[in-house]
């Protein structure tokens, strides 16, 4: 048996989302089973299956580097602070 990851997409503009995984002896059986294990109540209009061994898995370390980069969080707080400072300077 192999493990397959199941992705479902609802009709419309929603993106594909990971719905779960299942075990099956081969791809043809996997697609058939997935329609019952993950979409039997019309949870999706489209479905992708990927055998888990074919998923490229990144080393968590290459993501951990980005834990401490506040300058990449463009939430506008610095610009807002500067504009406030300018405004208050004009008033005096």
């Amino acid at each position, binding site marked *: 048996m192999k493990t397959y990851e199941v992705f479902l997409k609802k009709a419309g503009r929603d993106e594909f989302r990971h719905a779960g995984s299942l075990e099956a002896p081969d791809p043809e059986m996997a697609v058939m089973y997935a329609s*019952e294990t993950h979409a039997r109540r019309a949870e999706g209009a489209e479905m992708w299956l990927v055998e888990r061994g074919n998923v490229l898995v990144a080393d968590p370390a290459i993501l951990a580097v980005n834990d401490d980069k506040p300058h990449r969080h463009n939430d506008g707080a610095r610009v807002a602070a500067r504009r406030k400072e300018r405004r208050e300077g004009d008033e005096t």
Partner: protein
Amino acid sequence: MSLKAAERAHLLALADDEHMVGARHTNWIGLGPFLEEDLAFCSIAQDELGHAIGLYEILLADDPDRDSADLDGFAMLRDAADYRSCWLAEVDCSDWNDSLVRHWMYDRAESLRWGALSDCSDERVAALANRALREETFHLDHAERFMGRVAGADVTGKIAASINRLLPIARGLWDELAEGDPVATGFASRSVAELAAEWETLIADDLNKWGVDIILPDGNVSTGQAHRSIRSDGFDAFHADLQRVILLDTSAVW
């Protein structure tokens, strides 16, 4: 629209088959060989029970002597002699190989039977037939794929033993009803005899495709079934089991 006697009998036979085989299939809930198969097989069981409900609703709506709200009573509480299920639908298949072989033989037949009703002169029946046929696509895919993977590689001989046991029983699916064949009134598009002949060919073709090289048995239980009027051995215990909960409180609304 009122149904003629042959049409009623035809629908009742199909309804009781769907009910019995659906109920028998549900015995595998939680016991399937692996979780994914468990779910798939139980979905098929639910679909068959859904077909039975649809047919019972039509039969009750058409029967002035019965309360159309009493579907459960009609489905579960008739006397054994009033059922018209065939022995294949009733038979105990406690071994997985027997259940799998029954599923394949039954769904091969069921698809043909619904197909002959898809243009039925009764619109309710035609609509139900077309819904059932969409579900049958999955049932047949499942049967063919599972059997295709295990039947040809049957090292234990269990699948062959199940085929030998069940094929003579399965032929009782085509036992002619006392009321006659509703093909005569245009209710069904093909005669039961015609469907039976095609079914035999499909069964043989499947086995050939899967590389199953066995001599098929000749038997047919139709004589014993007596136009589906006689229930099989083991029916009473099965029927009692089906009634166990509903009889706890007959006044309860479920």
